Structure formats: C-alpha cells, structure tokens
C-alpha cells in the first residue's frame, strides 16, 4: 500500500515500504512546458527536506527541484536522460526523478495529501 504526499513547490513523494519515489506534479510539468533536460542526483547522495536535489530544464528556463523529505538517493530515473519528455507525458508515473531510502515518517506526514494539494493548486 503506497501513500502519496505533495509539497507547495509541486513535487510529489510516494512511499512504498521504506522506499520513497519523487517527481514533479502534473501542475508543475504543465507550468514548466517542454522539458528538455533533467539533472538528477547520484545514488548515495544525501538530501535534506527542502534542499536542492535535481534541476529540470525546459525550453524556457532552468528550475530547481527540492527533496520533499530527507534521505539517501538510491536510484535516479536514467530513462529521463534519453527521454526527458516523459516528465511532460507522465509526470506522476514514468516521469519520476529519483528514489530515496531512510525517509522520516514524520517529515512525510507533514506534507499535503492529495485533497490538500488540490485545494492548494486551485487557490493559485
């Protein structure tokens, strides 16, 4: 049973057991426009909640992606190197960015759930 939470910077984090998968939301992907390059963190890198973890480049501009929660990177989505457009096509699925281990349950629980995130986006 997996659970998904959201940040006010439009990242999503899905917790499956003790592995968390992170990506950007559909709202973020649509705002960025066509993604042409994603710079991903290397496996083994420690990230902190709210810290810079990745960079996404659209035709227009570069944007930082922040870790929704702290942890250690165990895998980056290498498919995005050849096909960065997956971020636009399936941002909350195949367009995931990286996976973390050791995510604090407390940090995760503080993030917005789907209903709260929807309310947040509707208010923008």
């Amino acid at each position, binding site marked *: 049973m997996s659970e998904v939470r959201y940040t006010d910077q439009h990242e999503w984090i899905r917790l499956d057991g003790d592995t968390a998968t992170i990506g950007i939301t559909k709202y973020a992907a649509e705002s960025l*426009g066509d993604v042409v390059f994603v710079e991903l963190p290397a496996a083994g890198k420690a990230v902190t909640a709210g810290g810079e973890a990745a960079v996404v480049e659209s035709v227009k501009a570069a944007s930082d992606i922040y870790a929704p929660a702290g942890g250690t990177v165990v895998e980056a989505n290498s498919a995005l190197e050849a096909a960065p457009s997956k971020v636009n096509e399936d941002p909350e699925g195949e367009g995931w960015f990286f996976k973390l281990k050791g995510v604090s349950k407390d940090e995760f629980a503080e993030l917005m759930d789907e209903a709260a995130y929807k309310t947040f986006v509707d208010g923008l």
Partner: protein
Amino acid sequence: MTDEILRRTPLYALHLELGGKMVPFAGYEMPVQYPAGILKEHLHTREKAGLFDVSHMGQAFLAGDTAALERVTPAEVAGLKEGMQRYGLLLTDQGTIKDDFMFSRLAGEAELYLVVNAGTKEADFAFIADRLNGAATLTPRFDRALLALQGPAAAAALERHSPGISALTFMQVKRATVAGAPAIVSRTGYTGEDGFEISLAGADADRVARALLGEAEVMPIGLGARDSLRLEAGLCLYGHDIDETTDPAQAALLWSIGKRRKEARDFPAAEKILGGAPTRKRVGIRTEGRAPAREGAEIADKSGRIIGIVTSGGFGPSLNAPVAMGYVEPACAAIGTPVDLMVRGKPLPAAIAPMPFVPHTYRR
C-alpha cells in the same frame, strides 16, 4: 514591477481565445506559448508556417530629409533603393549599440518606414527626433499592428490572401492588400526562415490574423518559440546579445555598416569600430550533451580561466541540442576552440561554433 500597467496589442482577445499563456514582455501582455507548446510551435514554423504577433514593436514613418537618419546609424540610408528594406544599428555617441532596427523605402514614397524593438521604442524615437533636430520628422505609429508569417509554407499561405505577394524576394517591401486590408508587406523576419512581416492598421489585425490562421499550414507561435527560432538562426536579441556596452565590431555586425559609410567613417567611434581590434567578439557555442547553458553563464578556457559570458542560451528544438551565443576574448573566438560553460558551478564541455546554427532559407 507588479503594479506596472501592461499594454495589449490588437490581438489580445485572439491570444486568449487561442489559449495563449500571457506573460509580461517589454511592457506588454504577450503570449509566451499556446497550448501546443514551445517545441511544437518551433518545429511547426520550420516545417510549415507560424504566425507571430509582433505588434508591440515600434513602427514609425520618417519624413523630410530622410538621409539625415545617417546621423544616428552607420547603415547606408541615402542609397537604399525603392522597394527595399535594410537592417541597421542605432548607435550611441560612444558608438555602442542603442538598438537594432529595420528601415524601408516604399516605391514612390518620400517617407521611410521604420521598425524598432518593443522595449526601446519610446527611447529610440525620442533619440532619433532629438538628433534629427527638425531635418526630418519622425511620426511614431503606435496604432499600427505588425504580424510575422514565417516558414517554408508562408508564401503559399499568404499568396491566397494577397495574390502576387510571393513575387517579393528577401528584403523587398511593398504596399499590398492582405485579406482585404491595406498593408505594408516585406519579405523579412527573424527566424532564419523565408517569410513575411505585415504591417497594418490595428483595427484590421484581428481579422487578418484569423484569415491567416485559417490556412491549414499556419499555427500561432508565441514568444518562447520566437526566441528559440532566432537563436538557432544566430540572430541577436537586443538587450541580451547587443546593448549599450557592445559595439558593431564586437557584435560581428560590421556587415550592417554601408560601404560608403565605412569609407567616410562618419559615425560615432568609427575609428575604433573599424580599427580591427575589438576587445571581445560575439560567437556561437555548441555544448556536448543536452544540458543548456543560459544567459549569464561564464565561458572558461580549458585551463579554467574565464574568457567570456553567454548572452543567449537555450535548447534548439530543430537541432535537438543546446545552443548558445556569447562574447569571448578575440584570441578564443576561432571556430572549434574548445571551451567550458560554467553551469551550476560545473564545467560543461563546449566549442565555439559557426552561426547560424540552422541554415537560413531566405528566398533570394
């Protein structure tokens, strides 16, 4: 700047209707893209035809002793033939670039028709009027709209609304009727593609734009693709690649100075500009990999010494690769010189490259 009142072009309602994502640009609310997105809009323009609203640009007519315009530009104005348009630089008293602009001499007309950049238009017009000091009279036409129809199918699409217009060749200009509206049409543009620019009364713009968009080949194109198209074409964006700190020699725009003007050296800082020893040069840059370097990225030589700066950088959809232009020390400006672009503190391997990055397809 949040309480700045933004102006709208006559196509504002059409942009909204087409789903344009409106952003502030040069004091106007302009579409950065439509629902198709920048990549598709860019590629469509290179494959078929794109329609751009460039009504925010500054249009004006110059009457009187029009050759007096040579006081503010090193371009050949007096010798411009009827029916021709030309690119020129507006120079400061120090010989740096105040703006770049187009000027036209319409057949049988005494006035010159000018188009300057949107963000600089008020200042340009005030500067020109001041320097001409009554010898010629400049009349800004903020009421006029300007459309650009660009791409390999532009001629066929425009011909259906303006029979005979495709007889124009690159840099020619004439008065014509487009979809029933009186217009000034030139075979010019800023994408590197064949295409046209159409100046018309603001009141006619919406109807003419809709008529052109009704053609199967034509898609509306926003500012995002306009920028990626001009960058691939190696064309300068004023305020970024050229400004009041750069001169025509540094900017590799000496070709825009008329032969007679070069001989007469009758423009600001002519000796310095024509002296053959610019302190830096504008170059094209291609990077390895897919990470783009943006405006402001430093350019380093292979020993790590900073030799210049990127002034325009992004992703070139037609090349499916990043492209950039910037300024480097003249000794490092040769095609093929290996350099690093500093992106997020890391060196991105790159090399000085010829421009245009995508060949121009003007109809000569």
